[in-house]
């Protein structure tokens, strides 16, 4: 059944796991919020606090057939796959499809192509936003800081600034933000193509632009992030994904030091040394 190494198979593989694996990182982090924990801020523009993706699970590449194309939670993305809202494959260009196939086949045949996080390099946008670890938002005048537990990634959102004409390439890109009513709009460019979208290997080029619309819903207990991806090299048209994060006042970010005893190191050719 390995004849079709496309997005359908990938979605199926990922769905299988969400259904099968009840023990996500969210549960390991301490379960539900304490009853005595403080209430979320009533200010819709106050996004501060610790947030955790609601759908965190492991991707099991062996479970590849017999499941539907929909995400188990309809249009929601989860921690291993950025799920297109329309349930269809991202509109890959020929280059995008080729790159995707290379990553996906590599995973399937136990010869994964190393991605930056393997070598303790920041995960990159948009992948960092779906990591199955908590993220904390801190708001200052002119700056929104996102602190990620996984490999101490950071994102700095420069508020009220225009998107620069030219920025040097970095893993997590250069981000500017503004408020559209009570929705935080973040535009990120300058994202190095060395990163991939997610664990199944959706690729992008240096020309990727990610636009996020982030807002609090459910009385502030939930954060919604709707992504729009534009990349003329990898995709024939823009596409969208939607993520939900839960407010988790019961969690403090833990220390995560990828650089200590990394047994996943990959050499320059991308071959991993994992055993």
């Amino acid at each position: 059944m390995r004849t079709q190494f496309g997005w359908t198979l990938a979605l199926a593989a990922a769905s299988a796991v969400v259904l099968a694996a009840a023990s996500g990182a969210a549960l390991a982090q301490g379960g539900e919020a304490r009853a005595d924990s403080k209430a979320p801020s009533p200010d819709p523009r106050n996004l501060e606090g610790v947030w955790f993706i609601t759908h965190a699970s492991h991707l099991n590449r062996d479970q590849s057939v017999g499941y539907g194309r929909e995400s188990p939670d309809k249009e929601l993305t989860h921690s291993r796959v950025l799920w297109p809202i329309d349930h269809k494959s991202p509109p890959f260009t020929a280059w995008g499809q080729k790159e995707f196939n290379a990553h996906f086949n590599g995973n399937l045949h136990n010869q994964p192509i190393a991605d930056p996080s393997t070598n303790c390099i920041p995960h990159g946008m948009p992948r960092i936003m779906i990591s199955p670890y908590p993220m904390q938002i801190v708001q200052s005048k002119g700056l929104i800081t996102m602190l990620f537990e996984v490999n101490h990634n950071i994102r700095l959102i420069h508020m009220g600034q225009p998107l620069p004409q030219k920025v040097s390439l970095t893993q997590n890109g250069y981000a500017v933000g503004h408020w559209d009513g009570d929705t935080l709009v973040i535009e990120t460019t300058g994202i190095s193509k060395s990163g991939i979208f997610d664990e199944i290997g959706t690729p992008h080029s240096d020309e990727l632009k990610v636009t996020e619309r982030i807002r609090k819903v459910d009385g502030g207990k939930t954060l919604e992030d709707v992504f729009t991806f534009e990349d003329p090299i990898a995709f024939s048209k823009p596409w969208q994904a939607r993520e939900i994060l839960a407010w988790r006042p019961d969690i403090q970010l833990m220390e995560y030091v990828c650089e200590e005893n990394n047994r996943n190191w990959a050499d320059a050719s991308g071959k991993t040394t994992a055993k």
Partner: protein
Amino acid sequence: MMRLTALSLCAALSVCGGSAMAADHPDFTGLWQAPAFVAALKTTDGKAPPLKPEALKLYRQRVADRAAGRKVGDPVADCLPHGVPRLMYAPYPLLIVQSNGQVDMVQAANHTQRLIYIDQAQVEPGDPKWLGHSVAHWDGQTLVVETINNDERTWLDKAGLPHSDEMKVTERLRLGPGGKTLSDAITIDDPKTYLKPWSTVARFNRKPGPLDLPEMVCSRDHKM
């Protein structure tokens, strides 16, 4: 009255914190950098830290190894965290964002995060972390930070000042005139390594311009 004072300070600096800023406390939010790199820490009065004999032997070995070009085992050279307080005076910009009951720091060197929890109980001793666990309280205009559970593998400076897991670090962070400088008066209390507690001070200048950090990735750039 206190509120007015803090707000006008805020306006003068154009760097005041977000929605959760407590108006009667100073706000350390900003981009800071030590004006000069100090490779070997001295006490506040310019003396050598009071190492116990065994620790002195280890320290001298590290200094000699570096002078001879031998591998010295500095964790920072292997992209591991600086630890507290060395993270503070690493020779790169330090972003401080203060809000949400916390003072959070990002050291540009390998985008290392240090989170300091204000008015929270200290954790139990005995679970070392590379950056320990930091809690703080206000003493007037000074933020007093106490850090325990400091992993003994970190060094206090590049020269190789050692410490044990039992080290307690107390820092008194305070803004200078006009908020243009920040001082960190550091006291090291580690009876396993030092004959007595000793103090040093790190000073920082506020970097002008937008709050931004270069992307420094040690495992890619091999620089820290």
